[in-house]
């Protein structure tokens, strides 16, 4: 579904991604782990073109997305993104946050968009917060709204960039539970995370990145239970 070939990304003289090859299949949950600065967030941001790849190719459903002739905005409607800092729109209510893009981009009418929003809010357990503003919500609640907002565009893939890293510990579970539910429902997901428990439990495959390359990848049992590479072992011994 997503195919990445020889992906390179550099910021000036700093090479962040040094040739990534990977393929993500439909309905698969892939967790990306690794130390800070390993390029895992950049990797994720390249998939919805928040960063422009320096070299290489990314295909979604066979369409090369980092091609000058591709409609970036169209691609992005099919790739949902959830950010570490939530990035909800503070001047809009929860409901408006969710309905804005479907109304504007998908040309949904107000009623349909709101029905969809209520359905999604129900799913993330925040129906009663529809008319609140983001700053009236806890971090965990905000992140769940952000997930609902991304889902409202009915994306084919959901990307999560350290979705629980900015949360107080007691709020991590509520967000992870929503993500687990999504995984069960068959959403294709790429999750950059430091939550090893989540990766072990939910991921179909785990990627360990370091120094801008994929050092090791495989099913979670293999990565966590029997890592082959020294660097993977060293990293896991620190975080587990």
């Amino acid at each position: 579904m997503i195919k990445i070939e020889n992906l390179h990304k550099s910021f000036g003289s700093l090479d962040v991604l040094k040739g990534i090859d990977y393929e993500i299949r439909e309905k698969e949950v892939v967790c990306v782990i690794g130390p800070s600065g390993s390029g895992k967030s950049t990797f994720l941001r390249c998939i919805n073109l928040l960063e422009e790849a320096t070299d290489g190719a990314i295909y979604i459903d066979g369409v090369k997305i980092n091609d000058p002739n591709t409609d970036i905005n169209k691609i992005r409607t099919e790739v949902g993104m959830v950010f570490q800092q939530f990035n909800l729109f503070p001047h809009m209510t929860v409901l408006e946050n969710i309905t804005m893009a479907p109304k504007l981009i998908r040309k949904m009418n107000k009623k349909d968009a709101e029905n969809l929003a209520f359905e999604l809010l129900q799913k993330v357990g925040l129906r009663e917060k529809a008319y609140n503003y983001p700053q009236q919500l806890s971090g965990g609640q905000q992140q769940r709204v952000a997930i609902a907002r991304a889902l409202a565009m009915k994306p084919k893939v959901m990307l999560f960039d350290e979705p629980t890293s900015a949360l107080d510990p007691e709020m991590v579970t509520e967000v992870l539970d929503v993500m687990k539910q999504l995984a069960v429902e068959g959403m294709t997901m790429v999750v950059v995370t430091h939550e090893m428990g989540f990766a072990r439990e939910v991921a179909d495959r785990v990627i360990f990145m370091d120094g801008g390359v994929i050092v090791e990848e495989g099913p979670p049992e293999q990565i966590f239970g029997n890592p082959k590479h020294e660097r993977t072992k060293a990293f896991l011994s620190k975080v587990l």
Partner: protein
Amino acid sequence: MEILDFRWDIIWNYREYFIRGIWVTLILTICGFLGGFIFGVFLGLGKNSKRKWLYWPCKLYIDLFRGTPLLVQIFIIHLAVIPSIFGHSLGFMVSGIAALILNCAAYVAEIIRAGIQSIDKGQMEAARSLGLNHFQAMRKVILPQAFRRMIPPLGNEFITLLKDSSLVTVIAANDILYAAKVVSGTYFRFWEPYLAAAALYLILTFIVSKIVSFIEKRFSVEYNPRKDKKDEGRVAA
């Protein structure tokens, strides 16, 4: 004591000059601000642009008009620019408003630019990741937030302009300060006319600052009575 011996009747005798002065000051300021605001929005967006050919002229303009005194700009426009273009003067009103627009635009541009830049870049990323293009993201997400932050500095700029409009008196505009000058010239008394002029400016700036703080409150995120009531029922459904 001479100071205690105020003769407010001379102000009253010349009340028509002061009333006309208030109108002229208000017209100069309001026209200068509205024109400056519209022009300033384009300059500010231009200075925010990554395109060099758009950025540099805007930056040059802003630096030029912020780096030179308004008084000098008024003289250049009134005595040099307008006569060169039209062959003769078009009067203090045209020159005055032109100078205030051109000057105000440079300051408004900086307010616009700073307002847009103060919005966290995650907001743009979130909007773009939902499929909005740059223009839609600006219109729906960045500018509404930036505008709220621009209200207080724009209010300050309006008040500054109101006071600075008194400089136009040097090209014989019959504004508030001009009325004071006429009175002082007639009676050779200086306390009353200039204190009266100061008081009038003070009253005007006070009213403006009240209006600004009302607008500020009106546009704050919390103030939204319509939304809080509407459709509450659906939440429980």
